[in-house]
């Protein structure tokens, strides 16, 4: 026991060291919601329980290994069972587990309580981007990775938010209860933002629920966490949380823009307008599978160049984009793209990369087909 102060200092020091290293970038984030802090609390509780059990169990083990070395002349005892000890080491873990299950159950119940939300956001996973729709507000957009290819290929220096930056973040108000409804247009994705402690699978044919009430304004970043194909690593989630007033004016502005877009359906668009809008849509939506130069990735994703069937059959081309292809990866875009966007992107595909058909598709035609 002469070493007692030393031992205490060593144990205390290592606990302190563990605590301080666990704070920053090494541990689960504390997050910005009441639930994320509860979850963090559960995580730390079970972690320290494991540490204590580990110290005791491995302590006895290493003591035995040191104390009963044959090289030091240890003679083996003969005992090989002890009912009392065996009952104790079955019962004690059971009690610890019950103690752990109680708070976990309470937290889980809260996580499942998605009712009485102030705002509903539909989150749709698509290979390989997220589509957000503010239900009942006529505001919807897709959110694409913006990290330039050169940074990924190592031809340019990587930015601060490498792979965690998007063109249009999901904008949410702080202080209000936001309910997410998650689904997918193609394969299973999973929408995760660590700071919000929300991770929920987006599954085709299912609508899952989750919810959040953010406390602090800020930008929170996450990623898709369910393997969803080639660009699984390249579909980040970015949430921008702002004060309710700022959110309301942002939403009003987006509503107006959506209304302007809708009014464009009726007028005649020029070829140049369709082509430039079409290129923009193509590169943000279609290029992830069919490539920027339309070469596709056969055999799963067909090429759009040198594809006579596609070019010859204008009607089928339009039907494919609107309805998708049954049993194949091509999804239906009738709900996630506007008539203007569909018309523009089809026009672009029929005139880009040497597909010089010269024909254009007007938004009004698409609108008519959708109805």
């Amino acid at each position, binding site marked *: 026991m002469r070493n007692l102060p030393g031992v205490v200092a060593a144990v205390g020091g290592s606990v302190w060291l563990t605590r301080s290293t666990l704070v920053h970038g090494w541990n689960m984030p504390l997050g910005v919601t009441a639930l994320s802090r509860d979850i963090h609390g559960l995580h730390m509780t079970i972690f320290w329980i494991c540490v204590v059990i580990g110290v005791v*169990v491995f302590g006895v083990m290493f003591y035995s290994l040191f104390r009963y070395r044959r090289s030091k002349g240890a003679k083996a005892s*003969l005992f090989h069972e002890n009912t009392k000890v065996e009952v104790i080491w*079955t019962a004690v873990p059971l009690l610890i587990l019950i103690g752990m299950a109680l708070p976990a159950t309470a937290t889980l119940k809260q996580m499942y309580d998605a009712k009485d939300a102030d705002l509903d956001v539909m989150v749709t996973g698509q290979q390989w981007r997220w589509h957000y729709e503010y239900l009942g507000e006529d505001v919807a957009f897709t959110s694409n990775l913006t990290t330039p290819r050169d940074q990924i290929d190592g031809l340019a220096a990587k930015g601060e938010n490498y792979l965690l930056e998007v063109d249009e973040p999901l904008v949410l108000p702080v202080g209000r209860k936001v309910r997410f409804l998650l689904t997918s247009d193609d394969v299973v994705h999973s929408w995760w933002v660590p700071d919000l402690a929300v991770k929920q699978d987006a599954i085709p044919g299912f609508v899952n629920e989750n919810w959040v009430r953010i406390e602090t304004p800020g930008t929170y970043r996450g990623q898709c966490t369910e393997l969803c194909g080639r660009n699984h690593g390249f579909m980040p989630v970015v949430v921008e949380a702002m004060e309710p007033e700022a959110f309301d004016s942002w939403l009003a502005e987006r509503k107006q823009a959506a209304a302007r877009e809708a009014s464009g359906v009726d007028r005649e668009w020029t070829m140049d307008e369709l082509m430039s809008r079409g290129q923009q849509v193509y590169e943000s939506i279609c290029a992830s599978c069919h490539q920027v130069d339309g070469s596709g990735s056969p055999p799963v994703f067909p090429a759009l160049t040198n594809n006579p069937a596609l070019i010859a059959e204008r009607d089928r081309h339009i039907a494919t984009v609107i309805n998708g292809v049954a049993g194949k990866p091509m999804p239906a875009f009738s709900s996630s793209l506007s008539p203007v966007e569909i018309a523009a992107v089809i026009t672009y595909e029929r005139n880009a990369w040497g597909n010089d058909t010269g024909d254009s598709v007007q938004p009004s035609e698409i609108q008519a087909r959708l109805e």
Partner: protein
Amino acid sequence: MAPKLPPQLPPQNRVEQAGDASGTAGHADAGYHHGPKGLLRWLLTTNHKEIGTLYLIFSLSMFFIGGIFALVVRAELFQPGLQLVQPEFFNQMTTMHGLIMVFGAVMPGFVGLANWMIPLQIGAPDMALPRLNNFSFWLLPVAFTLLLSTLLMPGGGPNFGWTFYAPLSTTYSPPSTTFFILSLHMAGISSILGAINIIATILNLRAPGMRMMDMPLFVWTWLITAFLLIAVMPVLAGVITMMLLDINFGTSFFNAAGGGDPVMFQHIFWFFGHPEVYIMILPAFGIVSAIIPTFARKRLFGYASMVYATSSIAILSFLVWAHHMFAVGLPLVAELFFMYTTMLIAVPTGVKVFNWIATLFQGSISFETPMLFALAFVVLFSIGGFSGLMLAIAPADFQYHDTYFVVAHFHYVLVPGAVFAIMAAVYYWLPKWTGHYPNERLGRWHFWTSVVGVNLTFFPMHFSGLAGMPRRIPDYALQFADFNMASSIGALLFGTSQLLFVLMIIKCVRGGEKAPAKAWDGAVDLEWTVPSPAPLHTFETPPRFQHQEH
């Protein structure tokens, strides 16, 4: 404690059976081989020791192939950015690494050990169904050649993860997926036939006087594992057949657009997948339960409770599958049920760890290489168990799920868990197989480089996962860079240190210090009563089993 039971069959019957099993050469003198020579000998062999050797060599080869795939993954992840491979190929590497390691390295490794050691440990002349045994093995090279060949097919090999979630693995999969299904069917048939053989052997061919509760724990754990295999491999066969129909015959089991259910895929897969996890660890428990008493020179503490704990784990393994699916959107009651059952598994698993430590307590311990691996197993498997307990807490699992924290967890139970146990078994039984002790110096180098490598690889993954890095991504944000660099360096160290393992095996086969029949002074089981190296035919007359009071 239990009343003494009469042997199940009179000894004369045993002698006749042994005669039958040795085939046409009824007069077989132990140690001499009568069949064809050369390659044909290995193709046609029905001898449990030769088939065991084939399984082990196959497993080791697959361990290296799967390991090379892992090193491709780790090399790409050494730094942020895409340097070596493109995402398409990266996904094929992660998928193939998982499939090859699970179905090609770990499972056949344990089957090889079962083939070699179960007849020797129960005093049987061979496996109960020797021709079936030959067929079970030779299915494997065919299955895995086919699986590996998919990498060269148009569109590449499987790229949807070893869990092959639909519809990524059906509607969105490369054309080679049909071959992947066929190869998995073959591997599954091989496992089922192997399991039938092991059950038949253990239940029918035990030495007269050996009761169930006298069997070594390796035999017990394998018996339970074999029942798990028979229960769940058909479930795997079912799910891949449904995939086959979805891909080729227009059904919609997992296609939502056709009224199918992608979540059902996950339920069926994990109903197979969770018992599968225990299939890969229960025999490891048996091995460690043989090695620790040997080198502590003290009887295993709590033999009966070990048997009961193993059985409870096996039964519970059918009731926890949805803990892999906490983020899928299960109803609250389902989440609670699977959280509680999963936490419950910690109790029998804890009992096992406590028993091993109680065996060490007041023993007379020495540290030969098999013991080093077994002790590392106890510590590092327990660390994997701790992270498993953390993952069982459903609310926290929403944060852990599908991140590197999970990757760290299952690699801790599979690499320093299952794989270290197989290595411990190889060091432990090599004297029996070859007649020579493994080179102790080489063994220690192999052990220490492996332990350092494995921890350097997998420990930082806990941190990268908690900090928010999803699994199965080919490129990552900058804050994960240091952890990944450490992991990649560790992987290279662990991978190259396995060359020492091969070197040790080759040296041990070719020569080394001669081992007596009882190669380790603390060893007690029946395999140590036959000469080292074990002759080709052993226990042609059943031994008299002296049972110990438990």
